[in-house]
């Protein structure tokens, strides 16, 4: 069991989940309630990591991280280190790679809030922030939970992008998934087996939680206006 890799994976998944949720809530609200030309393009860009081979994504990220690119140069001037083959680079790659897993459950959750409820909140004197905290978030919370669980689990299990962007540096960019690959190559079946079992168990639990939350949401009435039997 590679505890270093386990720790890196947890740190990466936790940081990705927190940062991505904060950003995705605003992105999803914006997408849910505004119509503008090019909306489909924005949605397409968000969903792109779902269909793109991780190697393609990893390749473009490496290009973007290089000294020749603006992003790479700015980061190197600011921190003195390169983005490629560093934990920061890995985190940035995870944010891009897991974006659809955060945005899509949130988008569905915010789209399901009837516009009338937000208007009723405004007519009750609630401003933008109060409406968000008192009405939108409580109604969208199953979506927030789904997004958090899916993002965390997906980041924990990513392999291709991590290998392309992070390499395999112990204690810095070697995640659990990479470590499993590494141990398998070295015929260390015991270590590979135990780590695989850990990820399998974790994935099963998280996906079950998401389904349970979804079912609970389906049983709840969407909004008032439906008359009780």
């Amino acid at each position: 069991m590679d505890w270093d890799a386990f720790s890196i994976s947890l740190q990466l998944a936790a940081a990705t989940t927190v940062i991505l949720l904060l950003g995705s809530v605003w992105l999803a609200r914006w997408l849910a309630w505004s119509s503008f030309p090019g909306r489909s393009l924005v949605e397409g860009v968000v969903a792109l990591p779902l269909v793109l081979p991780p190697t393609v994504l990893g390749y473009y990220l490496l290009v973007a991280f290089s000294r020749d690119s603006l992003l790479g140069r700015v980061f190197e001037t600011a921190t003195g280190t390169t983005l490629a083959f560093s934990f920061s680079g890995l985190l940035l790659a995870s944010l891009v790679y897991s974006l659809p897993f955060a945005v899509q459950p949130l988008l569905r959750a915010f789209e399901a809030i009837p516009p009338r409820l937000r208007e009723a909140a405004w007519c009750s004197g609630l401003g933008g922030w109060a409406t968000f905290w008192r009405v939108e978030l409580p109604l969208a919370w199953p979506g927030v939970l789904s997004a958090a669980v899916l993002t965390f689990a997906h980041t924990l299990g990513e392999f291709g992008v991590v290998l392309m962007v992070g390499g395999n540096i112990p204690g810095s960019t070697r995640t659990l998934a990479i470590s499993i690959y590494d141990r398998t190559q070295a015929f260390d079946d015991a270590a590979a087996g135990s780590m695989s079992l850990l990820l399998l168990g974790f994935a099963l639990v998280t996906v079950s939680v998401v389904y349970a939350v979804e079912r609970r949401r389906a049983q709840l009435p969407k909004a008032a206006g439906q008359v009780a039997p």
Partner: protein
Amino acid sequence: MSGLRVALEQAGPIPLAAAFDCPRGQLLALVGPSGSGKSTILRCIAGLHRAQRGRVECGGVVLFDSAGGVDVSPQQRRVGMVFQDYALFPHLSVLDNVTLPLRALPAAERERIGRGLLERTRIAGLEARRPHQLSGGEQQRVALARALARDPAVLLLDEPFSAVDQVTRHRLRLELASLSRTLEVPIVLVTHDLDEASMLADQVCVLHRGETLQQGAPDAVLARPASAQVARLIDMRNLFEAQLNGHSAEQGWSELGWGGRTLRCAYAPGYDPGSRVAWCISPTNVLLIPERLRREEGENGLDTAILDLLVGSALTQAVLKCAGPPGLLLHMTLPTRVARRHALAVGGSLRISLPREAIHLMPAAAREGGRRAPT
């Protein structure tokens, strides 16, 4: 303090050319077919929609003025809004729904006011329920209590009785009538139901494609529509065209040529002899002439045949065909006990009278033909 004054204009998406006012303590009903812009006007008053041009003023406070660049946010407007589907917050209890607009107050004060409002809208005892555990009528009461919680300067009701059954609707209407007597603010009720409007409203404002065509007391609008278009919108079934033959000022009548016969109506000097006019008579004002009085000439007596009868518990509606060409149809509404006493039956004959004072003249509509236009 003045009441509510509204003037709104826009080209689209729903065209508006609306102007009306509603004094404090009065209930104004906006009536019109669906798509006539009723809800859009309410949304403009609440600040949820911005018209291209116009002015909304309530209790001396300007809420919207396109010329002066004023557009107060919905949060800053003291407007109580009851949405058509009530828009209760499904994740909050009844009490929390009602006290949400009172967030600024201390918790104890908030709860005291909230419980008082629930008592006022006769729903005390259901504080802990969630909206989905309530019947339609109860939901409407919670929505009303929430709208009153802001101590609104104007109360807006968007088809508040459309989602409840007949019995509940009747009870809620009675409650709204008594509430409107005690509230010292203007109330605007959107409805497509004329009966509802005439039962509840002090003023009725008829809307068509966003344009306010006539405002007045319900009785006045129903009996004396300003134009053939208003008459059609308020479902005036006896709407015809005729030729104005002439006037007799000293005897106080004007004479109409209608379908080969002549009718006399109250003196109406505003119409030139020889011109086309539209006229209408409310079905309740068409009078039955009993058998024993047949020989006497009533006002505008007509012989008719009964084509159809709709017998309700209180009122009976009859469709009558005037004798001789061109077989014009008249609608008559009379108490069912009267219809029974005179043994009205389909196929039978009936002599009726159209009282002069009940015949209302309007400028001729642009369209051809004297019958009510299909809607």
